[in-house]
């Protein structure tokens, strides 16, 4: 039994001093720039968001065998995600219980044990301390190995093979945490059956606050301008961005989906097609397909997707974000993590998700599209980073930061409709509903002292006018 798991420290954030951090209100659609520049805000985010939330770790296919590990972060805590001899996936803080040294300095690999390079404390794949040099001679056997194992995450679980962990024992289950909107997001990656994550996670550093990277994923307004060079060279089809036909789904705790949609009329036509007919349509050359398929976007989701994603979710082809920082992108074929590295820096990671059923040729085509879209060399992503950096930088200017960001597009202009299934959505044009929702929920996370308070005070997914 590891008795030191999940401690609360005296400086974790409930101190009177930390409580004085002003958390802005976003109800008027104005975003106070302090949230991108105040170091107190950032410290509180680490405590009240990242140390509390279910954070994405990796996919099961990245660590298939006992002894396989992948290192990642929960906020600024480095963690080892490792498959044990028993086949279970565990998440362990990457810090030796002796002097705090990082046990594992690699991004991934395979091992039998984790041996500290400082004094040689040795831990098993389950985190148990299994040996310390000089136990008899120097410690005179006065050390209880059972009490000094690696600190495990409070909870680890997966949805469809995608592993998440939380450091907070008070967090709800992953299933409940995701809620309908989060689950629709993950299901959007699983419509073609089981998936694998391809070897190689792209990682790069952008000088921007992590939230500016996150809110951009809902921003279908910037595409025309930010990415105009990608359109000009023929890589990006602006028509497919569908600025006049957008759907937004808002989930409790801050999850959201925003972007293009399939209309009810189009979906009714799709519903009449068998899986085989859908596959045949998708296999046609572009021009022929365009004349015959109900929607331009391919692939058509299979019949079973409607049950998995719900009658509304299946019509959303936008971008889901699992709060706080996991973007499900590129038609469900990529995951982008936006990892905070201080208030003004973000590490962006791209995982590539591929259906196991894909042929070599389908995989090649998908890889090509993905490599050229995102990642630091992506024709789209190249131009995002600098905008985000400059937006972050300007939040440091004394005068500039007096002026809040305007996030008021379509504020009070749209209606949330409720489907008989219970799924809610807005059907509208380009808007900033999902961004506002993300910041509103962010504020609730930041004000609540613990999960109990957060669950009692969080906003329910809105209905009616927003």
């Amino acid at each position, binding site marked *: 039994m590891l008795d030191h798991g999940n401690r609360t420290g005296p400086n974790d954030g409930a101190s009177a001093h930390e409580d004085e951090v002003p958390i802005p209100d976003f109800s008027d659609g104005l975003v106070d720039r302090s949230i991108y520049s105040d170091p107190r805000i950032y410290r509180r985010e680490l405590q009240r968001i990242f140390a509390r939330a279910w954070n994405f770790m990796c996919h099961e296919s990245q660590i298939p065998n006992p002894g396989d590990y992948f290192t990642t972060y929960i906020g600024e805590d480095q963690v080892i995600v490792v498959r044990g001899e028993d086949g279970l996936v565990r998440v362990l803080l990457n810090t030796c219980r002796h002097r705090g040294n990082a046990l594992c*300095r690699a991004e991934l690999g395979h091992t039998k044990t984790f041996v500290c390079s400082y004094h040689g404390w040795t831990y098993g794949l389950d985190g148990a301390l299994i040996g310390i040099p000089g136990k008899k001679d120097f410690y005179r056997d006065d050390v209880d190995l059972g009490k000094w194992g690696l600190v495990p995450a409070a909870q680890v679980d997966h949805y469809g093979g995608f592993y998440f962990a939380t450091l907070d024992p008070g967090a709800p289950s992953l299933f409940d945490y995701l809620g309908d909107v989060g689950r629709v997001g993950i299901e959007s990656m699983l419509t073609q059956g089981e998936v694998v994550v391809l070897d190689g996670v792209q990682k790069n550093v952008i000088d921007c606050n992590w939230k500016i990277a996150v809110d951009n994923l809902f921003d279908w307004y910037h595409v025309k301008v930010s990415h105009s060079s990608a359109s000009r060279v023929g890589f990006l089809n602006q028509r497919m961005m569908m600025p006049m036909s957008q759907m937004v789904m808002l989930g409790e705790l801050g999850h959201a989906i925003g972007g293009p949609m399939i209309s009810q009329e189009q979906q009714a036509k799709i519903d009449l097609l068998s899986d085989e007919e859908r596959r045949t349509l998708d296999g046609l050359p572009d021009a022929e397909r365009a004349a015959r398929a109900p929607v331009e976007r391919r692939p058509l989701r299979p019949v079973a997707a409607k049950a998995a994603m719900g009658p509304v979710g299946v019509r959303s082809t936008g971008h889901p974000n699992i709060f706080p920082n996991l973007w499900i992108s590129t038609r469900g074929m990529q995951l982008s993590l936006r990892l905070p590295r201080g208030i003004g820096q973000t590490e962006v990671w791209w995982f590539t998700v591929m259906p196991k059923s894909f042929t070599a040729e389908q995989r090649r085509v998908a890889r090509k599209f993905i490599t050229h879209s995102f990642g630091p060399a992506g024709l789209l992503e190249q131009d995002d980073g600098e905008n985000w950096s400059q937006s972050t930088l300007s939040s440091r200017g004394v005068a500039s930061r007096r002026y809040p960001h305007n996030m008021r597009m379509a504020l009070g202009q749209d209606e949330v409709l409720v489907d008989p299934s219970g799924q809610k959505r807005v059907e509208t044009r380009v808007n900033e509903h999902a961004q506002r929702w993300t910041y509103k929920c962010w504020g609730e996370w930041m004000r609540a002292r613990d999960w109990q308070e957060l669950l009692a005070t969080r906003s329910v997914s809105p209905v009616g006018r927003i």
Partner: protein
Amino acid sequence: MSLTAQPQHDARLPADLAERMALQYEVEQFLYDEAALLDDRRFGDWLGLIADDIHYWMPIRRTVTVENLHLEYAKADGMAYFDDDRADLRMRVEKLQANSAWSENPPSRTRHLVSNVRLLEVKDGEIALEAAIHVYRSRLNDKIDQWIGKRRDRLRRVEGGFRIFERHIFLDQTVVLSPNFSSLF
């Protein structure tokens, strides 16, 4: 090895020293000229040096332990930073020439330093080589990126020079400490 011993020479290169030196010179001058085209933002001319069958590739490199060095580079059928053919490079060049490629307007200032050029094989008019590169990029007033690494190129001799038909770029960073790769290598 005695002082009078002939240096071992690789059977994959011309046996004659003068011939090897001439080829080395010719290849180096080509690589310097090519680098100058990139630094002078003559991207269209640079594209002219790229063969139709180019494979332009920068794999993902990772920090791994000595025991796991076989995992250092992501597999060839996995993900990469660049995995381009000529049409892809043409798209990148056209993008660089568009005023609305915001990561390059104002334009970056780059310097491509190429050194440690080693010919690996010469066969049927094709030359395999390895070189060290140091790409310096100054961006806006205060942003600096530096990428150091190794390039493995394959050149094909054509009338009046060479064409590059393979360029594999291995950077010495794992997490890329830059906001983007809007530059070419």
